[in-house]
């Protein structure tokens, strides 16, 4: 994805831009891996991930646990680091269980959301993400477990007693009120003065680029505009936490992309915490500080977008986030894995010797060489131009590899494929069904 800097005022977005996209990143990783011989991928980002993931422990241990790490960080990273250190826990879900009849949706679920975080619950339909959001919003009661808001148990609180506002998937605007009345509703209910409300409605509309739409009827607006009104209606109440339930799901692609940047900007401007639910992995990667990948009510992985993409912890995550080649393989010993009968050096350790593992290799990480010059010889069986690059299928070693390359290789061309050690991600074999890659129909 190309990103125009001028359209991107938010810090979070810059962060995505600077550390974001696959091509650049692969190159960076290559240098890093070759130069330092470091066993860890993306060392710099892992630092951040640790900071966001296990902040309390780091903070308790002291602000700068490793001076050399600090020196290695750029300005942006430093700012982020500081921001994260100031963060505190806003919402904590403790041991939440929820079932509908015999269907267990959430089973002893735990989650902590820091203040000022853009956190995304990502998973296929029916994975429990919306239920989770509804429990946080107060629309559903958990069967057991507690919800804490800044340390206070709010499990029993009704939605109108929580400092939380929600943006619904289908907007849920009040059809009998005009735009201004919709936005003013929450403020009116809380007894704010007329002049304050007028001012806030103006501010809310400005925030979502709908200035002057106060008297417009709701049904006279497009889907995108209605969703903006819904966002304005929620944020004018200055909630501490904004819940967004697939808010872009009903919009078309172009609008959805615009709204993603809009949301990032809003979050930066307002400084409130966003808890976002989606099944769209691209949305999650673009906007989030932290992504929680869910399947069948179980957390599959928590991490920054980079971590989730580059280091999926199991086949489900690898398959759900982006295109990937997921293969059965055997870990010969540390740093050596046998894929399709051929040994590939890799960087992972600690999987044991001669153990079956899953391997994920991203299509853009497959290097196509002349026959005999790579590790596995094969032949191109499919080639489609999909915009930025060509997407090809290569039959090699008894597996159909998905490869992306800016150079086109005609169908039938004999080629050889190679992967640098750093781009081979080793994963444990699934022990639970929800860790397995999705069936096509399941998606």
């Amino acid at each position: 994805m190309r990103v125009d800097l001028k359209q991107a005022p938010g810090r979070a977005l810059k962060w995505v831009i600077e550390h974001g996209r696959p091509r650049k990143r692969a190159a960076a990783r290559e240098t890093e891996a070759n130069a330092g011989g470091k066993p860890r991928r993306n060392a710099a980002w892992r630092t951040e991930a640790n900071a966001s993931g296990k902040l309390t422990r780091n903070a308790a241990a002291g602000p700068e646990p490793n001076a050399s790490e600090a020196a290695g960080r750029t300005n942006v990273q430093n700012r982020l680091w500081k921001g994260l250190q100031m963060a505190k826990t806003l919402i904590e879900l403790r041991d939440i269980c929820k079932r509908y009849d015999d269907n267990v949706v959430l089973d002893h679920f735990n989650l902590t959301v820091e203040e000022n975080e853009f956190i995304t619950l990502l998973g296929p339909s029916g994975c429990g993400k919306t239920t989770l959001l509804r429990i946080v919003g107060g629309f559903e009661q958990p069967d057991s477990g507690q919800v804490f808001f800044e340390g206070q148990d709010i499990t029993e609180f009704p939605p109108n007693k929580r400092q939380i506002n929600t943006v619904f998937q289908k907007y849920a605007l009040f059809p009998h009120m005009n735009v201004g009345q919709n936005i003013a509703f929450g403020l009116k209910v809380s007894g704010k003065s007329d002049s304050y409300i007028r001012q806030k409605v103006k501010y809310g509309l400005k925030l979502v680029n709908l200035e002057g739409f106060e008297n417009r009827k709701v049904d006279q607006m497009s889907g995108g505009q209605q969703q903006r009104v819904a966002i304005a209606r929620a944020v004018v109440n200055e909630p501490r936490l904004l819940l967004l339930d697939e808010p872009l799901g009903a919009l078309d692609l172009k609008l959805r992309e615009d709204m993603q940047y809009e949301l990032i900007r809003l979050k930066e401007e307002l400084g409130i915490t966003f808890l976002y639910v989606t099944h769209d992995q691209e949305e999650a990667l673009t906007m989030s500080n932290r992504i929680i990948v869910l399947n069948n009510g179980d957390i599959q992985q928590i991490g920054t977008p980079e971590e989730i993409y580059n280091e999926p912890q199991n086949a489900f995550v690898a398959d759900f986030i982006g295109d990937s080649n997921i293969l059965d393989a055997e870990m010969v010993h540390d740093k050596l894995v046998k894929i399709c009968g051929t040994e590939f050096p890799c960087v992972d350790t600690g999987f044991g010797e001669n153990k079956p593992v899953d391997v994920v290799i991203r299509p853009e990480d497959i290097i196509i060489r002349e026959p005999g010059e790579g590790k596995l010889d094969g032949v191109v069986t499919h080639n489609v131009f999909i915009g930025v690059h060509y997407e090809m299928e290569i039959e090699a070693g008894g597996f159909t590899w998905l490869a992306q390359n800016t150079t086109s290789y005609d169908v039938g061309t004999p080629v050889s494929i190679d992967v640098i050690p750093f781009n081979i991600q080793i994963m444990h074999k699934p022990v639970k069904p929800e860790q397995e890659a999705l069936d096509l129909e399941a998606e």
Partner: protein
Amino acid sequence: MKKLPAVPYIVWMIAGTFIPLLMIVYYGFTDRTGAFTTANILAVFQPVHMKALGLSLGLSVVSTVICLALSIPLALVLKHSTMGREGLIVFIFLLPMWMNFLLRTMAWQVILEKGGIMYHLAHMLHLPFPPIINTTGAIVLGMVYDFLPFMVLPIYNVLEKIDPNIIEAAYDLGAGESTVLRKIILPMCVPGIVSGITMVFVPSLTTFVISNILGGGKIYLIGNIIEQEFTTSANWNLGSGISLVMMVFILLSMAALMKLDKNGEGGMM
């Protein structure tokens, strides 16, 4: 070709609505000899007719208001009851509607009249017998009983269609239950309320059966007057004239309701 399927309806409308209406207009503006006259129309201003019309309007308004007051809570209860029970409650509610309207009204006569069920019940409990039969109260009771489902169902239908997310959004924005009811649910019910009012008010205004059976033939509503002109008096011209005036009344009240509905959409807050 396209219009071919519409032919039966057009024929039906001509035969069932258009021609009878024209005949009423013809009879209304002529006398027995067939000469043009406005006497039949102006006859509505005779004191006895005015009284009947006033009473009809009054009783219709009262029973409509009572129906409305009963229907809104009832529709809310129906909406909030759980799925399994919901079907049953609606069914029970609809059950009397499938029985003949006359029978239902006559059943009330049996209940209310002297020597009827109420009489014996009051006697058993040593209570004074409530002399409801043959009063306007009995007529209102009959109207409410007969027409209540026509008020409940449209309101219930509208309530059912309200997106639960909209209610949740209102709670989410800090509204309590009574605010949600006043600012969200009731305003969104207005279309159902309007059609409910129409479906109760109009038949109440024109009924003659209920007043005949429960009024003991002593209370004259405008419907009774018209009926008598057509039957006992055999004065079709006068009956048609008063019918036309009634029609104007109904059209006016409908127009007023429509206006309320329109306002209700945008300006309830």
